[in-house]
């Protein structure tokens, strides 16, 4: 039976984890992810799940324990934020290249220094090349649904990659929203029984995990990893389809909002997509043909879907909630411009870095971006490719 509950983004992640009932969770609490671990620990204490919870002494240990548990054959989950994710760094690559389907909600928070506990995407953007699939959620409902979907994506026999399910720290993680939940049995049927590949505990078929892999084999293993990400692009839409059939929720790599007849558009991730949609509604009333392209996945990078969505757009603003410090703006900007270049789409694109360290982004600021895009559309010239929105001069 489906039920509507009031949850924060963190509680939504923990609630999905409860219904999934993973074999092992190894986690360390860090703001603003803490409530995920806290709520899930409560489920364990109340006997609502039979998960083995490993309380570790750091995130490096959390991800290491997840690697061990997953290799042993357990359905494994964890959760983290910011500096915790940074401390996992070494093991992120080991989990993904060992092809262990760990699912990890990540509550996006700025990286130090200076120390800051609020939202930006510098943590997961830094990990975008660690070989994990990355999903970004706009609200608590998307967090809940993506955590469920992530299990099936990660464990698909032709993918077998770990997945991060990202939400905006505090903005989503600590805001109460009415969220539809699904029946536990239906969720368990959708994700299925976990069938591990080469589990270490299968002592009749002994395997070696993590051997030395030198000039003679390492490249082949990395080539397999690249191929898994390419295949994920083909397979994930089938999982969207299965999810829609079961839960009546439509998903795609991207969400297009009022793009079909739009002249100008912003590209954005996570909670800011909601603000951008409201801004677009307001601008539409004034006759401005604006739209929003929300990216749900950046790994694998859905270049085709992005190019297709932008084919009739005359000026694009990329909203980056992190900086690459490369002199070329944010990470989304360079990936999107390179996808458009490869597809021979010469739309003028400007980058707008915003919201670092939780700096507020409001409809007025997004309106400023759209006004600049109108100017870019009319002149077909980008005078300043990289812009910073909401920072004091």
């Amino acid at each position, binding site marked *: 039976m489906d039920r509507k509950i009031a949850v924060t983004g963190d509680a939504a992640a923990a609630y999905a984890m409860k219904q999934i009932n993973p074999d092992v969770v190894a986690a360390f609490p860090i703001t603003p992810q803490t409530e995920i671990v806290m709520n899930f620990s409560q489920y364990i204490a109340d006997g609502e799940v039979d998960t083995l919870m490993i309380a570790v002494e750091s995130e490096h240990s959390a991800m290491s324990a997840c690697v061990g548990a997953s290799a042993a054959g357990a359905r494994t989950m964890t959760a983290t934020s910011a500096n915790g994710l940074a401390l996992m760094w070494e093991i992120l690559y080991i989990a993904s*290249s*060992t*092809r*262990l389907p760990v699912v990890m909600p990540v509550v996006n928070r700025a990286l130090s220094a200076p120390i800051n506990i609020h939202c930006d995407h510098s943590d997961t953007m830094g990990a975008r090349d660690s070989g994990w699939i990355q999903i970004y959620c706009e609200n608590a409902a998307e967090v809940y649904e993506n955590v469920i979907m992530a299990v099936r994506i990660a464990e698909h026999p032709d993918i*077998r990659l770990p997945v991060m399910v990202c939400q905006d720290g505090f903005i989503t993680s600590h805001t109460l929203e009415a969220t539809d939940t699904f029946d536990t049995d239906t969720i368990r049927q959708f994700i299925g029984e976990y069938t591990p*590949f*080469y589990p270490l505990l299968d002592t009749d*078929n*002994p*395997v*070696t*995990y*993590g*051997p030395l*892999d030198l000039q*003679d*084999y*390492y*490249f*082949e*293993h990395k*080539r*397999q990893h690249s*191929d*898994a990400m390419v295949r994920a692009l083909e397979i994930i839409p089938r999982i969207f389809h299965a999810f829609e059939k079961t839960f009546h929720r439509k998903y795609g790599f991207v969400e297009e909002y009022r793009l079909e007849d739009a002249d100008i558009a912003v590209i954005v991730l996570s909670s800011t997509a909601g603000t951008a949609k409201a801004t677009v509604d307001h601008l539409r009333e004034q006759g401005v043909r604006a739209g929003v392209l929300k990216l749900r996945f950046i790994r694998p990078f859905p270049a085709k879907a992005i190019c297709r969505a932008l084919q009739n757009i005359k000026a694009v603003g990329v909203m980056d909630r992190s900086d690459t410090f490369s002199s070329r703006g944010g990470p989304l900007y360079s990936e999107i411009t390179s996808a458009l270049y490869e597809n021979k789409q010469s739309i003028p694109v400007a980058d707008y870095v915003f919201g670092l360290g939780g700096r507020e982004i409001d409809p007025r600021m997004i309106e400023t971006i759209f006004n600049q895009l109108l100017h870019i559309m009319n002149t077909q010239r980008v005078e300043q490719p990289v812009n910073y929105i909401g920072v004091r001069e």
Partner: protein
Amino acid sequence: MKAPGWKTLPAGGLITEAGNAVTYNTGSWRTLRPAVDKQACRDCLICWVYCPEGAVKVKDTRFLGIDYAHCKGCGICASVCPQNVIEMQKE
């Protein structure tokens, strides 16, 4: 023999064939070779216990010699030998 390509290898760098390290000769890494004075050896087998590569050959309770195809020349056997009858010599 041509090594398998990425499409046929087991994913994740796993080795699914147990005990195949025996086909991978690490003896060529060695710069120092353990030379054992077999006459003076008392067959205590402490070298066999400590050798990290399983490169000490033993039959029943007798020391037989060193497996030079796999011995990396780390010298642990020489340092733990209570009789001091293993000497590390330059290759």
